[in-house]
C-alpha cells in the first residue's frame, strides 16, 4: 500500500470524524425523538462516506459500491421502522419529548 493511497484516506478522515461528532452531538443534545433520528441519519452518512473512501483509496471501488447500495437499503428500512416506533410512542404519550420516555418502573432496590 503506497503512501499516495493513504493520503486520500487521511485527507478525508477528519471530515468523516467531524460528521460522526455532529451526529452524536445531535443524539445527545436533543429533546425530540425525531431529531434523534436525524442524528442517526448523519451517523449513517458518515459511515457511508467512510466505506466509499476506503474503497476508492484502495481501488476496490466496485466492492465499495456494492456495499453502499446494500447499506442504503438497510438504512431506509431501519429508519422507517424507527420512525414507526416514534409515531407509536407519540400516539401513547401525545408528545415527542425524550424526557417522557424514561420508564417509571426503573430498577429499584428490593426491600430485603
Amino acid at each position, binding site marked *: 500500500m503506497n503512501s499516495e493511497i493513504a493520503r486520500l484516506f487521511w485527507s478525508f478522515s477528519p471530515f468523516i470524524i467531524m460528521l460522526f461528532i455532529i451526529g*452524536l*452531538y445531535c*443524539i*445527545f*443534545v*436533543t*429533546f425530540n425523538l425525531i431529531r434523534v433520528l436525524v442524528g442517526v441519519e448523519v451517523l449513517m452518512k458518515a459511515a457511508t462516506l467512510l466505506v466509499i473512501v476506503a474503497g476508492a483509496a484502495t481501488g476496490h471501488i466496485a466492492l465499495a459500491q456494492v456495499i453502499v447500495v446494500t447499506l442504503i437499503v438497510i438504512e431506509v428500512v431501519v429508519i422507517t421502522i424507527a420512525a414507526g416506533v416514534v409515531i407509536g410512542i407519540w400516539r401513547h404519550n401525545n408528545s415527542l419529548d*425524550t*424526557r417522557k*420516555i*424514561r*420508564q417509571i418502573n*426503573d*430498577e429499584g*432496590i428490593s426491600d*430485603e
Partner: protein
Amino acid sequence: MNIMLFLPIIVPFVSGGVVLLVPNRLPVLQKAITIVATALNLALAIFLFKQNVSCSLPWIGFGIDFALRVYHFSAFIILACSCFGFLIAIYSSFFIQKNFRANQFFSYFLITIAFTNGAVLADNLLLMFFFWEGLLLVLFGMIALGRPGAFKTAMKAFIIVAITDLCMMIGIAIVSRLSGTFIISKINLPPSAAGSVAFVLLAIGAISKAGSMPFHSWIPDAALDAPLLFVAFVPAALEKLLGIYFLARISLDMFQLSAHSFLNTSLMVIGSVTILLAVMMALIQKNYKKLLAYHAVSQVGYMILGIGTAVPAGIIGGLFHMVNNAIYKSGLFLTAGSVERQTGTTDLEELGGLGRKMPITFICFLIAAASISGVPPFNGFFSKELVYEGALKRGFLFYAIAATGSFFTAASFLKLGHAAFLGKVPPKYEHTKEAPLAMLIPMAIIAFFCVFFGLCNSFALQKLIQPVLHQANFHAAEFEGFKVNAKLTAVTLIILFAALANHFFGFRMRGKAIAAADHIHHAPVLSFFYAKAQEKWFDPYDIGLRIVNMAAGFAFRVDRAIDWLYEILIVKVTGFFSGTMKRLHTGNYGTYLFWSLIGLAFVIIFLSRSL
C-alpha cells in the same frame, strides 16, 4: 470382576429412581425396595473389601475417563457407609410418618448412597467432583423435605456447600495443571506455592463436607428443620466419612507435606477451634437434636486435629475417631429419633424420666454418650487418646484445647442424659412406651459396635486402619490397647470427674438438670458471646448475606451516581456549546449511549496500549 466396581453406584442409583416412581400409597413397597437395595449394597461392600482393583471406561475425552479404583481405604469407607445405610434403612421402616413425601426421601437416600460410593471409588478428580457436587443436590432435596421452614435452611446449606465446592473446583483445576493428570492415584505433588494454594482449596472442600467450622452453620439449623433420619445419616455419618476420607487422601497421598509445615499447623488450628467453639455452643442448647448437631460439628475438630498433626499417633487417631464418631453419633441421633417418635418432642424442657419408660433406648444412649465423652473402655476413649498424644507432640496448647473440649462434651452429655432420661416423668408422658423393635435393633447394633471397637480396639486398628496406612510406614499395632501414655489417661479421667463434679455443682445451684450448664452460659464474659452467637453474628452465611446486600445497594447507588454525573456533565458541556440550558437533556437511552461511548474509548485505549 471389573463390572463389580460399578455396581455399588448403579444399584442404589437405579433403585433410587425406582422408589421415586412408587406412589406414597404403597409405603411397604418403598421400604422393601430401600431395605433390599441397602442390603445388596452392604453385600457388595463386603465383597469388595480387601480387593485391590481398578478399571476405567472412556468418558468425556480430554484424557478424562470414568476411572474407579477400590483399595483398602476406599473399600473400608464404603463398607462403613453401607453398614450405616442398611441400619438406617431398617430404622426408617418405622420412623417415617404419614403425609410425608416418602418416595422422594427414600429416593434421595439411595441416590446419596450411590453418589457417596461413586465419590469414594472415583480415581479421577473430575469424576469424584461430579459425584461430590451431585451429593449437594440431594442434600438440598433432603433438607427441603423437612418441616415448612426448611427451605431456607436448605438454601443456606446449599450456598455454603456450593461455595466450598467451587473452591474445590479451582483446586482441582490447579492440581491437574501442576501434575498434568486427573488420575488421583498418580498425583503426588511436591511442596510448592501453587501446590499449597491447591491444597488449601481442596482442604476447604473436604472440611466443609465434614462440617467443620467455619462451614458448619447449616448443620444445627438442619437438625431442627430437616427430617431426623437425614441428620442421623448424612451430616452425622456419611459426610464425616467422606470429608475426612478426602482430607486424608489429599494430605497423605496427593500432596507431600512436610511434617511441620504451615498447612498442617493451620489444619490443627481449625481443628482445635472447631472443637472448642462448637462444644461451647452445644453446652447451652436446650434441644436434644440441636445439642447433638453441635457435637457433630465439634467432633470433626478431633479428626482434623488428628490428621493435621502429621505424626503417626495423630493420623491413626483421627481416622479411628472418624469411624467411631460415625458410629456413636448416628447412634445418638437414632435415640433422639426414638424419643421424638414416642413422645413427639425433642425439647429438653418438656422431657424427663424417660429412662424407666424406654430402658433399651436409655442403655443405648448411655453407651453412645459414654463413648463420645471418652469414657474408657468405649471406642471414643481410644481414638481420643491417640489424638491427644499426637496433639501433645505438636504443642501443649492443642492438647489443652482438645482436653477442654472433652470436659465440655462430658458436661453437656451429663446434662442431656439427666434432663431427658432421669428425674421425674412429666404427667404428659406417663404412658410412653418403648420404641418398636425395628428401631431398637439398629440402635443396639450401633451400641454393640461402640463397645466392640472399644474392647477389641486392636482388631479395629489392625484390620481397618492399618491397611490404609501401609504406604506411610506407620504401625498401628504400636497404638493398641492401653499402651498409650498413662499420664494422658490419668488426665482424661480427671477431666471426666471434673465434668461430673461440675454437673452436680450446676444441678445443685439451679435445681434443674437442664439448667446444669447455665452457670457457664451466664458466666460474665461468655454470656456476651453466647448472646451474639445466638443472634448469628458469627455465622459466615449471615455475614455473607449482609455483605452481598450491601454490595448490591452500593452498585445501585453507583448506577444512580453515574446518572447524576452524566446529567451534570452533559448539561455543562452542551451549555458551553449552545448557550441554552433548556435544550439540554436526554432520556435514559442517552445514559446508555454515553456508557457505550466511554466503553468504546476504554476498549481502544486498552487495545492500543497492549498491541
